[in-house]
Each structure stands twice: as C-alpha cells, then as structure tokens.
C-alpha cells in the first residue's frame, strides 16, 4: 500500500517535470525590456510597500512623524522669521544723512540761524529744520503713542536739524569728521549719523540669523537621529526577512532599498506636515502683525513660505530621511550581526 502510493507520487512528479520542460522550451528566456521593467517594478514595489508599512502602524508612525514635523517646523519657522526681519530692515535704507538734536534751551529763532550757518558749510548740501511742533505732530501720526504725548504738559521733543552732507556714504572718514565738528558746536546736544544705527540694526540681525542657523543645524541633526533610530527599529523588526533575503542571494543594495524608501517617506511626510504647521501658525499671527504694521504706516506685509522655500523644505527633509537610513543600514550591514 505504502509502496504503491510512493510509486504513484513518483509518477506524478515525473509527469509534472515533463510538463514543465515542455513549457520551458515553449517560452524561453526574458528579454532586456522585461528586465528593465523588472527593475522599475522593484523600485515601485519598494516605494509603495514602505509607505504601506508606515500606514500599517499608524500609532508609531504618527508619533515619529509628529516629533519630526515639529522639529522641521522650528527650522522653517526660524527661516521665515529671518526672512521677515530682513524684509523689515530692508525698508530702512542706509543714507548719509545726519540728525542734530539741539539742546532744550535753544529757541526756534536761534535754530533757524544755526541751520543757515550750517548751510554755508562747504561740506553740506542741504539742511532741514524740524521744529518741536512738527516733531510732535510726526510722532503722533506714526508712533501709535499719540495720546500719550497729549497728556504731557510740555513737549519733550527737541528741535532737530537734518543735515544732508555732500560727502557720499563711501567716505566714512569725511562723514565722521563732519559729525565731530557738529558735535562740538554748543547748541548741539547729540549729532547722530543715521548710518550708525542702521549698521547696528544690521549687525543685530546678522547675529540673530547666525544663531538661528546654528539652531537649525542642531535641529537637522535631531531629525537625522530620529529618522535613523526609526529605521534601526524597523530593521530590527525585519531582521528575519533580511537574513532570508541574504540567504537567497540578495545584494546589499537590494536589502537597503526598502529602508531607503522608508526613510524617504518619513522625511517627506514630516516635511509636508511641517509646512502645514508653519502655515497655520502664520495664519494665526498674521492679523495681529498686519494691524501692528498699519500702525507704523502699513508698509510691512508678512511673508509666507514661498514656493521655492516649500519645495526646498520638503526636498531637504526627504533627503535627510534617505541619508539617515543609508547611514544606519550601511552601518548595521557592516557590523557582524547581519552577516
């Protein structure tokens, strides 16, 4: 009984193998186009299966991606802050103009005479006198503290002479000498070059920009580490699969590919989420900022992430994802564990 069954099986197997040989001779070999398609399919499969894995574990994925999205939105938030501050500073043009703030005891008549005498100076192109009243009116219009100044008994603002020197901005020495000359005259309390405070403002902005760039590098490193760790855990969970693939002849690049795509997806989704977070935050603060801008003459409009910024944000976070997984997988494959 047992023997006959064995013979039967043997016969089946032989028939099957005969069938198979016939089939093989009928459709032999795969052509080049087929292989090219196979390569494309391999990438497409890795692309979608890695996305599928992220979706299949929503809780873990949402946690990781939220942390990354917050870190990336800090980076883009700092960037958009810097862009807006630069825009604000850009409205203030550097000029060679000087402001002479006169002492309190100088009268309008005396000031007019002084302005006249300065106008005679060969280095001076023009002088404009701003009286206390004019200054107060300007302050009321533009500062937003108009009511406050009405409360005061006495106008605290000094008379100002706006001097436009003939010397150009490039001649710093000449301008500084002129400033010193004005400073020495007894009627002048403070001789201020407009240039100076603009330079100060710009140096403050450049320090702030440098600081935010440094913070961005740190946050970029954090993003790399988080993605790297996520991919490391993923690799750990799929160790069995990797070992089997290796046993049946998978190259390192074959094994690496789905993990690189996983890194890409994590980076990409985090980048898109970060864009969303930043845009929502900016929509929330926009109204307040525009109202403030109106109070100062309304020349400032809040800048959002531009199309280029958005593309750069998403591209960089995707690339960071790929880089992080590449580093982790390559390291793990070279360590003895997966050999």
């Amino acid at each position, binding site marked *: 009984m047992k023997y006959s069954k064995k013979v039967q099986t043997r016969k089946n*197997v032989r028939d*099957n193998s005969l069938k198979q040989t016939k*089939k093989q001779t009928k*459709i032999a070999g795969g052509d080049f186009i087929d292989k090219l398609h*196979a390569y494309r399919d391999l990438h497409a499969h890795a692309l979608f299966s890695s996305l599928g894995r992220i979706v299949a574990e929503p809780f873990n994925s949402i946690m990781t991606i939220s942390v990354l999205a917050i870190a990336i939105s800090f980076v883009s938030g700092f960037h958009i802050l810097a862009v807006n501050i630069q825009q604000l500073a850009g409205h203030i043009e550097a000029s060679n103009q000087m402001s002479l703030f006169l002492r309190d005891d100088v009268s309008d008549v005396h000031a007019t005479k002084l302005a006249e005498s300065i106008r005679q100076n060969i280095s001076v192109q023009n002088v404009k006198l701003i009286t206390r009243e004019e200054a107060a009116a300007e302050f009321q219009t533009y500062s937003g503290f108009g009511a406050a100044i009405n409360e005061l008994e006495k106008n605290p603002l000094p008379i100002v002479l706006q001097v436009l020197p003939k010397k150009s901005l490039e001649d710093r020495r000449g301008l500084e000498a002129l400033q010193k000359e004005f400073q020495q005259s007894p009627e002048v309390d403070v001789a201020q070059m407009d240039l100076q405070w603009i330079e100060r403002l710009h140096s403050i902005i450049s320090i702030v920009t440098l600081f935010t760039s440094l913070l961005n590098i740190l946050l970029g490193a954090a993003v790399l580490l988080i993605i790297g760790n996520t991919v490391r855990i993923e690799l750990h969970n799929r160790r*069995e699969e990797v070992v089997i*693939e290796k*046993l049946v002849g998978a190259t*390192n690049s074959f094994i690496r590919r789905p993990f690189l795509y996983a890194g890409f997806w994590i980076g990409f989704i985090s980048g898109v989420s970060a864009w969303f977070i930043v845009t929502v935050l900016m929509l929330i603060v926009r109204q307040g900022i525009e109202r403030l801008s109106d109070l100062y003459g309304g020349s400032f409009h809040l800048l959002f992430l531009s199309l280029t910024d958005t593309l750069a944000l998403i591209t960089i976070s995707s690339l960071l994802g790929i880089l992080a997984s590449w580093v982790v997988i390559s390291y793990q494959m070279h360590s003895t564990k997966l050999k």
Partner: protein
Amino acid sequence: MINFDAVTKRYPETGDVLRNVSFHLRKGEIAFLTGHSGAGKSTLLRLITAMERSSRGRVILDGQDLGLAKEHQLPFIRRKMGVIYQDYKLLYDRTVFDNIALPLIIAGYGHHEVTRRVRAALDKVNLTGKEKKYPLALSGGEQQRVGIARAVVNKPPIIIADEPTGNLDPELSAEIMILFEQFQQVGVTVLIASHDISLITQLNHRVLKLDHGQLVAS
C-alpha cells in the same frame, strides 16, 4: 561542483568544529551528509553557503574559491544554490507566490518570467492552486515544499538541504526525497544533511559522515 580541500573551521569559543575535511561532489551527484548532532554538519553547510569562511583549507564551489571571493561577490555565489532549511525560513507576511518568487525578484527577472517560473516550481512540488495562500495556512509538509520550490525556482546547479525531512512523516519524507532525485537526474548537485538513518540506508546514495569534525566516511 563542491570541492572541500583540507578544510578546518575554528571558532575562538569552541575550537575546531571541522578538522581537515576533504571531499568532492561532482556535477549531478547526490549525497547525504550525516553525523551526530554537533559533528559539524551545520558548519559545513554554512561554509558552502558562504555564510562563514574556512579557517584553513579551500572551499571551491563551481570552480570558485570561496575563501578568495570578495564580499560583494557572495550574493552572486549564493544564487548558484538553492538552500532548503529544516525550519523552512519562509516569510510569513507574504503569500506562497511571493515567497517562491523572492530569488527571481532578487535576481532581477521580469514579471512574466517570474510568473512563469513560479508556476512551474509550484507545479513541480504539487502546490498548484495554493500560490495565494499564506504559509501559516499550509501544513508542515506543504510549507517545506514551498521552501523547496523557492530553492529550485532559479534552477540552480546546486541544491543544499539541511534536515529537509526533520519535521515530516515517513511518507512525506519519501516524497521529498523523490523530488531531490528528480533534480539530480537533470544534472543538479544535491547535498542533504540528515540524521534519518532509515531514509539514508533505504536510498543507497553516497554518504559523507562527520564525527567530531572529521570526515570518517565519504
């Protein structure tokens, strides 16, 4: 096809696991590898499948010295052999079809070729119609046959089997042995590690016997 030339494998912890082992399996030859547990069977298989390198001596596979092979060449050497494991080593989150297709996909075969070859392999191991099932829905014997189909789907010149009948009843074991003989008849070199003495004596093939790391019969 498989040539061991005075091969010694030493581990720092356990000392010599294989000592001065030499044998030659020709193309189309079938042999059993036997011996008590711990005799070095698994180590010998790991040397053939290039998962380990010998400490001394040379392992030559299809004319290629594995000791001299570069790391990046190893995947291509492994594609020359189909390996069958006692614990099947299947991917349980993929269908039977996908499991069997894995070596073909890794080797970069196109969709049509993959489908054709997987069908042929399924046919060969009598699993036609089960390609959409998951391994856990199959019996032990069926899972083992999925493992065999995966090992032969790429038509490798060498088949290595590590205790392929370990979990199977005698009838299924006999069936699987017939399959191996089938492959041998078309020129495939087959090496089967087993300690199933009754099966070995019944089939009267060449036997390589390991004892404490030394080859005592070949």
